[in-house]
């Protein structure tokens, strides 16, 4: 019998089985490989083969370049600083929200997580409006810096601070997820042992959260490395180049001729991101099961309430609401420098971006179409992929999932360069280049959005009774029919949530389209950036406010349907 067992164990299950179902997965694999992996692989080949016979020539050249060294050290220093800020703020917030009986948690969390909804360049713009000499808010408080003096945020410190506050949301989400998955009886056992809330937090909860805190910090670091919006708004005028802005400025200034050298810079970015993600994999273990019922009993704050509650809201007002308010006030100004009063307030900026400016109107259409297409197509692919991944536990699907993460995990600017490398030469057989068309943006969006659409869908399939699908099989329905008639209706809310998430990100995104746009094919992110760069700050602010409005409406739609979604799909729910 032992012999039989060993013989059977030695026969591994083949990865592929010649079944109709697998055709589906192979098609998805081909899709992921073409739109996501090929661009990334081209980066490597471009870097190592563009100087014939000298594979490392480009890297050596870049390495000895003064501008790269400066951008690299700037990137590392600002990212580490931002990570430290994000980790402290995010962890504190998670503890306050997760452990205490503070009132009004939902609203506080929503405000705290606004940076997840608002793209970095708009956050950075809001901050410059808040701290600048013309800051309507600071002027009201008589705290504004002298007119004409440089905005203090146009510096490495400014970048570090804004990125730190922005990425605190990432740390918060990781720590909170881990906090919710802590077994309640561990805390109750400590309570029975006579430990008070402070001791329990220090001796039991924080040590158990340590992997999540470190993992969240690693993610915040990766986000900081790849952040383009904040260094673009703050670092370009502040002459504080980072790797992402270096790539942008070189490609913008010299065109496709520098593709080889920016590929080399991209590889440095990829390496930094890989270090961060590797650290995360090493440091953090995934929270086992996140159950709704497992939430801890909050510790009553008692007398501390009068200190903690005002402090929390003071922070939320300063860090989130004030910049937003400054952005909104700026959007109603006739010109920068004019104080906002009932008499001066004007809708001209809104009229300009909505009606008068053809470029902005086009960008609305472009961004809407691109985001909608990316959302719908990604959801359509996430449906079968999520099914094979979570319900059928297919190993091939797991491989595809892993591969699909790559274009999402690398900084957006890196993917954009890869996509240019692939699509600049004319397509085989068709003899047209997609460079300079809107399609190149769509392809990059698709590559980056599949993981976003897949997460909620896979989570929904994870919770689905497998027998629902099997009953369909027994009834004689093939895969396509089951996907359409049984599986799609069963996971529809999550599928929609995934599509909306993709839409929200793509509608406002700048990092990818900054390199891929062309005249007639601008995105909203690009137009805001350009308006701001041209000094038309008031119009930029108006457009940014409109974008935030659209995203907020979508966020509210998602909150409204969140009770039909697996927990964690809507991150801003307390």
């Amino acid at each position, binding site marked *: *019998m032992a*012999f*039989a*067992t060993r*013989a*059977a*164990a030695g*026969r591994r299950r083949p990865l592929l089985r010649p*079944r109709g179902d697998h055709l589906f997965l192979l098609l998805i694999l081909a899709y992921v490989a073409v739109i996501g992996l090929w661009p990334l692989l081209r980066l490597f080949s471009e870097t190592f083969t563009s100087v014939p016979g000298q594979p490392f020539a480009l890297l050596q050249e870049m390495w000895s370049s003064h501008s790269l060294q400066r951008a690299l050290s700037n990137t590392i220093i600002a990212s580490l600083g931002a990570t430290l800020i994000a980790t402290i703020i995010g962890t504190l917030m998670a503890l306050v929200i997760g452990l205490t009986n503070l009132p009004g948690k939902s609203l506080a969390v929503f405000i705290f997580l606004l940076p997840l909804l608002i793209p970095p360049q708009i956050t950075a713009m809001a901050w410059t409006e808040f701290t600048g000499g013309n800051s309507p808010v600071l002027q009201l408080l008589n705290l504004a810096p002298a007119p004409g003096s440089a905005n203090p945020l146009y510096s490495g410190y400014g970048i570090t601070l804004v990125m730190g506050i922005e990425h605190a949301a990432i740390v918060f989400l990781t720590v909170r997820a881990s906090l919710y998955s802590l077994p309640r009886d561990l805390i109750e056992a400590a309570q029975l042992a006579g430990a008070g809330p402070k001791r329990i937090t220090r001796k039991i909860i924080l040590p158990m959260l340590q992997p999540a805190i470190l993992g969240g910090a690693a993610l915040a670091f990766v986000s900081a490395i790849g952040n383009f919006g904040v260094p673009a708004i703050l670092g370009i005028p502040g002459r504080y180049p980072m790797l992402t802005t270096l790539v942008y400025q070189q490609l913008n200034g010299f065109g496709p001729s520098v593709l080889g050298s920016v590929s080399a810079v991209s590889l440095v970015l990829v390496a930094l991101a890989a270090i961060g993600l590797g650290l995360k994999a090493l440091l953090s273990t995934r929270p086992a099961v996140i159950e709704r019922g497992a939430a801890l009993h909050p510790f009553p704050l008692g007398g501390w309430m009068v200190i903690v509650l005002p402090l929390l809201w003071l922070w939320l007002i300063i860090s989130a609401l004030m910049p937003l308010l400054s952005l909104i006030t700026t959007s109603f100004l006739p010109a920068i420098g004019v104080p906002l009063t009932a008499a001066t307030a004007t809708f001209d900026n809104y009229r300009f971006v909505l009606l008068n400016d053809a470029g902005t109107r086009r960008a609305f259409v472009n961004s809407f179409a691109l985001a909608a297409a990316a959302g719908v197509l990604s959801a359509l692919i996430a449906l079968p992929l999520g099914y094979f991944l979570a319900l059928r536990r297919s190993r091939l699907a797991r491989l595809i999932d892993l591969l699909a993460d790559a274009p999402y995990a690398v900084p957006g600017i890196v993917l954009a360069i890869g996509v240019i490398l692939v699509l600049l030469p004319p397509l085989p057989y068709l003899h047209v280049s997609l460079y300079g068309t809107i399609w190149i943006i769509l392809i990059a969006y698709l590559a980056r959005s599949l993981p976003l659409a897949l997460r909620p869908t896979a989570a929904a399939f994870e919770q689905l*009774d497998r*027998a*629902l699908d*099997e*009953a*369909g*099989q*027994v*009834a*004689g*329905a*093939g895969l396509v*029919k089951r996907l359409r*008639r*049984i599986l799609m*209706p*069963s996971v529809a809310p999550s599928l929609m949530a995934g599509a909306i998430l993709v839409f929200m990100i793509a509608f406002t995104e700048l990092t990818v389209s900054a390199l891929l746009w062309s005249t007639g094919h601008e995105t909203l992110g690009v137009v805001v950036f350009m308006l701001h760069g041209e000094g038309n700050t008031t119009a930029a602010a108006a457009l940014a406010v409109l974008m935030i409005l659209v995203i907020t409406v979508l966020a509210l739609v998602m909150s409204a349907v969140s009770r039909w979604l697996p927990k964690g799909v809507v991150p801003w729910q307390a």
Partner: protein
Amino acid sequence: MASVIVTDLGKNFGRHQALSHISLVAGSGEFIALLGPSGCGKTTLLRLLAGFERPDHGSIELGETLVAGRHVHVPPEKRNIGMVFQSYALWPHMTVTENVGFALAVRHLPRAERRKRIDEALELVGLGAYAKRRPAQLSGGQRQRVALARCLAMRPPVILLDEPLANLDAHLREAMQQEFRRLNRELKSTFIYVTHDHAEAMSLADRVLVMAEGRVQQLAAPVELYREPATRMVAEFIGGSMVLPARLRRQVDEHHVEAEVGQQLCHLRGTMHEGKALASFRPKDLELLTGTAPVQPGTVTPARVLDVIYRGGSYIALVQAEAMQWENGDAMPLRIATDFPPQIGAAVAFRIRDGWLLPAEKPKDMRAN
């Protein structure tokens, strides 16, 4: 005519042997229960029959068709079998009618024929009035009936049922058991019914396949299973027999053996065999003697009462005979049915009235996979 033929089926999950050397021939219209403790492989066998898993060894034929075997795998959607799931697996976004009619729509049946079959199936399970409801608006028992109707509307030659009554309360369970019997008789479909409840298996099935650790223990009609268990596992698992060691003396007649059990000689049903002899007894096979009436030595075994449990109408006395223990020193407490409860701690005796000599244990199967 056979409708399900399973030949030498084997299935491994990693290193775990979930099934090995399972063979079964089910006649058309037969009601077969797959019975065993959880983890015995009965659900795996059902999933192999349905086609959700592929066997590593052996073959499955449904009707005249080979559906699983070397290089052959007919997917579930092509097997034309019905299945009732433990969770019912009703599609929540469809009404009762849509649930029941789904398989018919997949088969492109004309609308009128579909309508007729749906009505018929709902009528069969007594849910005609609920056609427009959704699963969430039904009680547990009603959902169970919809699941059954969904399966019946296909008119499959074979119906697989995976612990279909596990989620119902005892009262409903009994009513549904009668339904299953009736439908099996009326529809002439073969029923393969997985359960871990031996009472359910015995009262429903024409034959019961008892499984343990992925192997067949016994395939027999309920009466035979009850009276003549093939293995110690069957004896203990079905109806809770006690298994005691016996020393065999001689074959008395064609069906009986004289044996020494405890300190007494008795007659056991069965045939002499070599090797370790074990006999199975039910609590009512033993007679508890509490009086002081003189008894012939060698016809009873003295014992002491450890506990007395009231079991609806009569008592079960838990007794321990000093002379009886396993080779490893483990105590061998006996359960004896009695109408009059003895004192706990009292010295008593018992007499063996009936018993079944378990057949010689077959050597473990040595065939390679």
